[in-house]
Structure formats: C-alpha cells, structure tokens
C-alpha cells in the first residue's frame, strides 16, 4: 500500500516530462525551419526591394537624362548645326545670311530665347530676341571680354552655369561658327530657357515620396521634382553631397563619369536611397532620391506579414505539439494504468490500445501477462479451496472422536492422558477454525461466496449474538453494554453472513480485551446506512497496525496478542462480506485504550421491508 502511494506521487512528474519532451522536440523540429525560412524570406525580399529601388531609380534617371539630352540636342544642337557651309572661306558671315540664320535658329527651338552673332573679334554683329526682335545697332556690345565668346573663339562649345532669374532659369550657350576650311569665322550664342526642362523634371516621381534632382556640375540645382517646395524659399544649389558628387565628376571625360547608388541623409534631413548619374556630354547630373521609409515600404510590409505569419504558425505549432504529445503519451498512460491494476490483482479490467505499433504489442503482452497471472491465481485459489475442503473432513472427524472420548471415558482416563487429549482438542479446534476460514477466503477469492441480501433487524441480531457469546465474555468478567436504538431501520444484508460478522467482531472484542474490561455495542443511522459500532477497552493498536488489519493472514504482533488464538483471516473475511453486501467497515483504535470497529450497511427500502 505504501508502495502504491509512492507511485502516485511520482506519476505527475513523470507524465509531465515525457509530454514536455515530445512537445519540445516537435517544436524544435518545426519552429527552427519556420524561423529560418522567415529569415530567408525577409532577406530575399529586402534584396529584391533594394534591386527594385535601384532599378526604378536608374530607369527614372536614365529617362530624365534622355529628356535632358534631347532638350539640349534640340537647343544647343540647333546652334551647332548652324555651321554655314555656304560661307565658304570667307571670314565673316554675310549680312544677308545673318538674319536668316538667326531667325531660323529661333524657329527651330522654342526654348531659345535669344540668339547673337559675333565676329571673330568678339564684336556683336546682330542680336535677335524672341520678344523684342532684332536689336538696335547701338545696343550691340563688345563681347570680346566675355568668357563664352573667348571659349567659342578658341573652338570650344560653351555652357554657362545656370542663371537664376526672376523670369526663370536659363543657360547661355556659345558655339564657334566655322567655315568649310574649319576656320572659326564667328560665334553663335543663344540663351536657352530651362522652363520646359524644369517642367519635365518636375514630373519625375518615385513611389509617393521619391523625387528627381537636376543639377549642374557646380552643384547648383536647376530643377527638381520634390513636391511642396517653394523654390524661392529653399536654398537651391547648396546641397553639399550633390556638389561633391558633381565636383568629382566635373571636368572628367564623359566615359569616366561614374554613377553612384547609395544611402545618405538628404538636404532635407531624410534618410534617402539615392542614385546619381552624370550626363554624357553635358555638364549636368541627374539624381534620384527616394526616402527609405517610402522606398522600402513594400519589404517592410512583407517583413511585418512574415512576422505575423510566423507568430501564427508558432502558436499553431505550439498547440499541435501539445496535442501530438498528448496523443503519443496517452497509450503509455493507459498501459501504466493497466499495469497498476494488474499489480492490484485486477486482471480483467483491460483496455485494448489500437495504435497498430509497438505500444499495441506491449499492451497485448501486458494482457497475456495478466491472463497468465489470473490463471496462476485461480490455480492457487483452487488449491487452497481443495486443500481446505479435503482437510475439513479429517479434522471434523478428529474433533468428534476426541469429544466422544472425553465425554464417554471421562472417568476411566488417567489424569495425564485426559490432559493431553484436552490439549489435542484445543489444537484441533484451532485447526477446524483455520480450515473454515480458509474455505471462506477461498470462496470469496474465487467469487464463490453466496450472498442473499434481505432486510435484517440488526438490533435483534446483535442481541442474539451477544447472548450466544455470553460464556466467553463472562469468563473474562467483561461488562457488556448494548445500547438500544429506538426505531432502528432494517438493513440490507445476508442473515448468516451478518451473524458471522457480528460474532467475529464481538468475539474479537472479547479476545483482545483486558480482564474486567468493557464492550459496548450501539447503532447509528448515517446517510441512509445503519452503522453498528463494537467498542472494546482492550489492548488497541498502533496506526500502522490498523492499516494492515484487514489484510489476509495479518495479525498484530506484540506481547498482548501472542497469547490470543487467531487465524489472521477473520477480519479479512469480515471486510469481504461487508463490502460484498454493499457496506463499509473501518476501525478507530488507540494503543492501550481499545478499538472501535464500525460497519455500515445500507438501509433496506420500505417495500423490501414489508416483504
């Protein structure tokens, strides 16, 4: 019994660890790949997003570059194309051709605001303004000191820095005019309004926040598409990193000009991912800047979704792992329960496990084992029954003959012989009792105990037993008290067995009592049961003895009990009988003070009583 208690104490701990182990392994093998996969997905998405951003920025910058190049082809190119081959080798453009040339130039491109023609010495020969028309001769200037004229005279194309005016930004371009022998015969200069170009640039956007910056090699912004910026309010042209990039590229041959794709803080303090590319044959740079929060919104959203998904999966896996763990451990739990029942001698209560695996095999082995144990027990019970049964006749015969001898030859027997026969009679009496008890036990073990319950008058039964045993308790000079319980209901019991129980308890109370002690018998009605108490003032028992009291062949071993005859089967049989009749028995005892045995039996139903 104590071993069983130990087992039940260990159970929850064992069950917990197995289930946790299985769950932990399940989690481990399923969660690690999920986390790894999420990480890879996030990484790939980031990479893809970055490439997408770079591609979009590159595309936009290239597109704008083409627009800018086209613009300058159509404007500066116009000035260049006008090399008048028909001039031949003359060193000055004929007056009649000048104005035609200039008018045609303005017609070619609407962006050209005005055009001027200078001779080789830098003297302005004529000027045509789109709004004013041809200039008066007295307004023509000596351009010999101007940078653009000097550059063009030396045969170079000249692009001025962007000139910011209240009427708009423009640049001035000067191209040498060459004759057919490649001799510079003059300079053609034009002012080109950047209004249309700025408008084109301002249409370039990326996502909802990305924008385009168009700036010259000196770092001055010519145009941009950054929304909500008042142009007069911002200090356009003063963005350090643009100036640096432009500086790095300024003067470099077109093939050496490098593009750049990087992240940095913009002039407006935002973290941006920027792409800048210098134009091929023009002193300009086009850059795209895209605030990181906008550019990487997609990947951030996917990251968030991946995170949410991972969490959901994690929770699901957690639940599933515990379910699986339970499923795995459930048959093992059943096996343990079965093993426990077999340990208790209950061989028939088997549950079939249908897992179709080793656990089922184990269960089947367990069932076989239970069957074998059951047969073994039956065999043992059979043997005890047969042995007891076979012993009964001889010991009964011995009993009869000894009684006869002692009664009929009581006067003729020598004193010694008589004394010895009396010893034999007592020993035989004990043997008879033992055989009877063994038979009873064997019957009860094998389920052969026959019971017929009917309403019994406990009070009458108790009084009869007390009076029947009077010689016993009188011999020890015990004070017997029977307390009446008026209107005591009938209890459901088998009459013979009930009598056996009462005899057993009262004779125990007598046997284990001290001389001149007391025995008290009384009844109680508790919860639809009739409880009968048999109290003695005897030797009593220690708590550990009480625990084993109802076990087979148990006898409290101490000096007080040794002199009392007993088989050790009486209380076991009593308990079997009471429980078979649907009742309960318990004992309360104190060493040296006495014991009280109480058994409860169900109250008989009224109709049963009337029968």
């Amino acid at each position, binding site marked *: 019994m104590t071993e069983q208690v130990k087992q039940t104490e260990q159970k929850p701990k064992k069950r917990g660890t197995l289930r946790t182990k299985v769950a932990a392994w399940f989690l481990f093998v399923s969660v690690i790949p999920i986390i790894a996969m999420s990480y890879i997905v996030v990484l790939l998405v980031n990479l893809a997003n970055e490439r997408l951003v770079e591609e979009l920025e590159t595309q936009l910058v290239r597109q704008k570059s083409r627009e800018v190049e086209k613009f300058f082809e159509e404007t500066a190119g116009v000035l260049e194309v006008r090399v008048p081959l028909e001039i031949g080798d003359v060193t000055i453009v004929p007056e009649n051709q000048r104005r035609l040339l200039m008018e045609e130039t303005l017609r070619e491109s609407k962006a050209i605001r005005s055009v001027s023609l200078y001779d080789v010495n830098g003297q302005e020969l004529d000027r045509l303004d789109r709004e004013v028309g041809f200039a008066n001769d007295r307004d023509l*200037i000596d351009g010999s*000191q101007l940078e653009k004229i000097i550059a063009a005279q030396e045969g170079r194309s000249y692009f001025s*820095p962007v000139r910011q*005016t*209240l009427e708009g930004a423009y640049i001035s371009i000067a191209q040498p005019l060459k004759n057919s022998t490649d001799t510079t015969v003059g300079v053609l200069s034009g002012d080109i309004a950047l209004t249309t170009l700025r408008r084109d640039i301002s249409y370039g956007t990326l996502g909802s926040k990305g924008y385009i910056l168009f700036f010259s090699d000196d770092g001055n912004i010519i145009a941009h598409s950054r929304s909500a910026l008042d142009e007069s309010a911002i200090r356009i*042209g003063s963005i350090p990193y643009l100036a*640096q990039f432009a500086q*790095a590229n300024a003067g470099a041959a077109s093939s050496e000009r490098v593009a750049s794709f990087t992240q940095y803080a913009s002039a407006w303090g935002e973290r941006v991912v920027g792409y800048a590319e210098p134009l091929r044959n023009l002193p300009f740079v086009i850059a795209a800047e895209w605030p990181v929060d906008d550019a990487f919104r997609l990947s951030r959203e996917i990251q968030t979704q991946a995170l949410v998904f991972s969490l959901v999966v994690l929770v699901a896996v957690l639940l599933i792992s515990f379910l699986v763990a339970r499923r795995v451990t459930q048959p093992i739990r059943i096996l343990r329960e079965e093993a426990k029942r077999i340990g208790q001698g209950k061989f028939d209560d088997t549950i079939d496990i249908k897992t179709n695996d080793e656990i089922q095999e184990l269960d089947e082995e367990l069932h076989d084992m239970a069957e074998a144990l059951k047969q073994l027990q039956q065999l043992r019970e059979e043997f005890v029954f047969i042995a007891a049964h076979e012993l009964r006749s001889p010991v009964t015969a011995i009993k009869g003959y000894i009684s006869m001898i002692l009664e009929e030859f009581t006067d003729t027997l020598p004193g010694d012989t008589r004394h010895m026969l009396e010893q034999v009679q007592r020993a035989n009496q004990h043997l008879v009792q033992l055989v009877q008890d063994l038979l009873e036990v064997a019957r009860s073990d094998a389920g052969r105990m026959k019971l017929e319950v009917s309403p019994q008058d406990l009070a009458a039964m108790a009084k009869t037993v007390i009076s029947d045993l009077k010689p016993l308790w009188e011999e020890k000079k015990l004070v017997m008290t029977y307390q009446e319980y008026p209107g005591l209901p009938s209890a459901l019991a088998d009459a013979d067995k009930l009598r056996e129980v009462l005899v057993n308890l009262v004779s125990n109370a007598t046997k284990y009592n001290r001389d001149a002690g007391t025995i008290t018998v009384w009844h109680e009605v508790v919860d639809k049961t009739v409880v009968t108490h048999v109290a003695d003032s005897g030797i009593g028992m220690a708590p550990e003895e009480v625990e084993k009291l109802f076990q087979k062949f148990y006898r409290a071993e101490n000096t007080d009990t040794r002199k009392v005859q007993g088989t050790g089967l009486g209380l076991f049989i009593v308990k079997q009988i009471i429980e078979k009749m649907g009742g309960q028995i318990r004992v309360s005892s104190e060493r040296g003070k006495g014991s009280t045995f109480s058994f409860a039996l169900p109250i008989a139903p009224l109709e049963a009583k009337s029968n």
Partner: protein
Amino acid sequence: MPVPSVEGVSRPHVVDDSSIGLDRIRLVVVYFVPADVIPWEGWRERIVPALQEMEAFHRLQFRGSSELVHEIYTETIVGERDSAFYDGSDTARGNPHAWEAVREELNRRLGALRQDDGAFDARLVLFEGVGAVGGVDQILVSSGYLQSPVEMPRASAVFYHELGHVFGLKDAYTYEHGAPLDEDIMGLGRNRPIGQTYLSEKAKKELGIR
C-alpha cells in the same frame, strides 16, 4: 581631385570681410532735392514697385539666405545747396561728387545710419538730378530712372547694381570701352530688366552665398 569643403555654416557677407554679415539688409530710402529744383511728387508710388523687384531679385540670388527690406523716409528732403554744388564736374561717371556731398549732408541732418541691431543698413538716395553711384553704405540714383519710359524697365536693375557696390562687388565691364566682362547684373545685366538678369557664380562666391 580634392573636394572643396562646402560643409559648415557660412552666412552671406560683404566682399572680403566675412565679419560683416548680409543676412538682413535694411534699405532706408530718401528723396533728395537740391534747393533750386522743383520736387517730383510722384516718387513715392514709383519707388515701391522698384524696391519690391529688388527684394525679389535679392531673395532669389541669395537663395533665401538673406532678406532685403526697406524703410521709406516719406518726407522730401530739400538740400541745403543748389544743383551746381552737388553735381560737381564729372556727372558722366555716375556723379560721385553728388554721392559724397549728399551723404555728408544727410549724415549731418538725419544722423549716421544705425548699425547696431544686426541688420546691415544702407541708404538709397533718390536724387533729383543725374547719377547712379553706390558704395560704402549709400547708393545715389537719379529719379530720372523712375520717370523716363526708356529708363524705367531697367531702373531696379541699376539700383541693385549700385547696391552690389555697397556689398563690395566690382563693376563687370571695362571703363575704357564699356565692354562687359560678365553678363550678370554687375556687367551687361545692369542694362536689362531685373527679371532677366542674375548674380554671377563668381559674385555669389565673393558674397559667401552657398
């Protein structure tokens, strides 16, 4: 290639002296008439649009880093002397004598310009006579720029050109032949409507405009 440092706080300043800032410029406008000349009553309404044009031009060229404001001394100031005194002998070069004489008289009569609240103070003298000259803290321009239909389109450009001298900028044309060295407002551009001219990159650098 070394990258020139463009970092750090730099504020616009007068040429060659970064200690005199140009973040805020206050232009005190006075109308000055020599004693023997009949004052022109229409100056007040003509000067305001010109000043506004100058201010817009200034804001754009300084990229918003400086503010030009004006205060108009509404009373006509009648000079103590006649035109002959102020004009001197070489009115062809912008009338520097008148600039000197008027400055001396105004400083005496109105007190020298305040220079103590962080603003850069300058005086615009609309002079009833000939002249267009600027330097130190004063520009003197003929009221004729606001009266002649021929001169009016370029009046504010001329005024700002002279203000440029106050900032320390040099003329961008040769004095011998008048050949422009630059097309900006200090050169050829002074003869253009102010809306079509600009401040050269060289001038911006000199003024510390980033």
